[in-house]
């Protein structure tokens, strides 16, 4: 690192903090890692944030306005995608959206300035995959509980000619089964790509500055200016990816709730 050598994926390394060897449940190791620590921090910050807004004042203060803004946003998301029946999914979708959003944003904090290493839990597909599988499982449970085996008609779009059904059905089935993968991978890839890009650019800044005034001018300085822009972009991506995850979960839930 001192020679300007930056490993762009080092930031995603999971480092066990404690419980490495003897913390296990049913033979599976459940050591407490930096990833677990940041997920715990996300949970605590999120709980504090929402608790601060649950003051039940009829005339809300700023904090309460912020929390009510988020709940109203998710509520509208559900209402516009599922309708009035969507209200019962609000606790899950709100938790999902806020957890992803806070995890994304906390991972972007410039804590390295004070010697801490922020870790973005959502840049690991083991994490996003579990969230995606959870959403997909809820879709399946709701779909089959509400429509029984009739839920399979989801794979035959309205107005499909009968001879086309044998072809359409597998295509629709595959596109349905791919959903949890696309859902989980999209978030993981977006978060990882942004962090790698920032790390690569910061590598340019360090090596360019170390190599002299000329490389500082043509490589380090432009990279640094680009980083400033990309940091802003990453904040946007953090919000958008949380929104997309929640939105697609709503769209999939709509299929299960209101079968065409």
């Amino acid at each position, binding site marked *: 690192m001192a020679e300007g050598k930056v490993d762009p994926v080092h930031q995603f390394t999971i480092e066990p903090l404690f419980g490495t060897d003897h913390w296990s449940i049913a033979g599976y190791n459940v050591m*407490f*890692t930096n990833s677990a620590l940041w997920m715990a921090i*996300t949970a605590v910050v999120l709980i504090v944030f929402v608790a601060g807004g649950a003051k039940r004042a009829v005339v809300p203060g700023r904090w309460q306005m912020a929390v009510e803004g988020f*709940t109203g946003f998710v509520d509208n998301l559900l209402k516009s995608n599922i309708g009035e029946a969507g209200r019962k999914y609000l606790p899950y979708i709100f938790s999902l959206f806020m*957890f992803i959003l806070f995890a994304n944003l906390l991972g972007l904090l410039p804590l390295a300035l004070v010697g801490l290493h922020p870790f973005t839990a959502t840049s690991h597909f083991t994490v996003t995959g579990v969230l995606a599988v959870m959403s997909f499982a809820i879709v399946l449970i709701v779909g089959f509980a509400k429509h029984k085996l009739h839920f399979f008609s989801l794979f035959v779009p309205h107005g499909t000619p009968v001879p086309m059904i044998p072809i359409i059905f597998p295509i629709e089935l595959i596109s349905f089964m791919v959903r949890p993968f696309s859902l989980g991978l999209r978030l993981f890839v977006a978060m990882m790509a942004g962090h790698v890009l920032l790390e690569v650019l910061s590598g340019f800044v360090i090596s360019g500055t170390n190599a002299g005034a000329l490389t500082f001018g043509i490589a380090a300085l432009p990279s640094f200016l680009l980083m400033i822009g990309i940091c802003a972009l990453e904040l946007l991506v953090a919000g958008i990816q949380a929104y997309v995850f929640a939105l697609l979960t709503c769209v999939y839930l709509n299929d299960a709730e209101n079968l065409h």
Partner: protein
Amino acid sequence: MPQIAQLATTYSSQVFWLLVCFGLVFFVVGLGLLPKVTSTVDLRDKQIADDLAAAEAARAAADAEEEAWKVTAARQRAEAQAVIAQAKADAAKSTEAALAVASAKVDETLAAAEARIGAARNAALGEIEAVAADAAQDIVSRLAGISVPAEQAQAAVKGVLAHG
């Protein structure tokens, strides 16, 4: 890529701690705190809707009040007009009666005056005849030296007067 390189050793820990943290968020935030927030929002929305409805009702009541007031005002105006018309009619009638009485009195006075005038003229005419007869008698006696009896003089004067 640590995500793949460390997959085998860390996946169970990742999944476990995600479920713990997300479960904590879901139960504390989603099921515990969120209903408080949404119920506050719903309560406020309901209160605003109720206030708006009350304002709307008050407006409707005011409109109805105004309408009733207009009806009352129109009725009272009509009543006032009727009273005025009645008063006018009464006044006209009494004026008419007073005029009739007055004109009757005037007519009576006029008739009496005319009668008096007629009587006075007749009396005056009679006097003139007598004076004219005297004058004629006198003139005749002076001019012709003839004494004309009074009856003859009178007859002559009558005849002249009658012929104009």
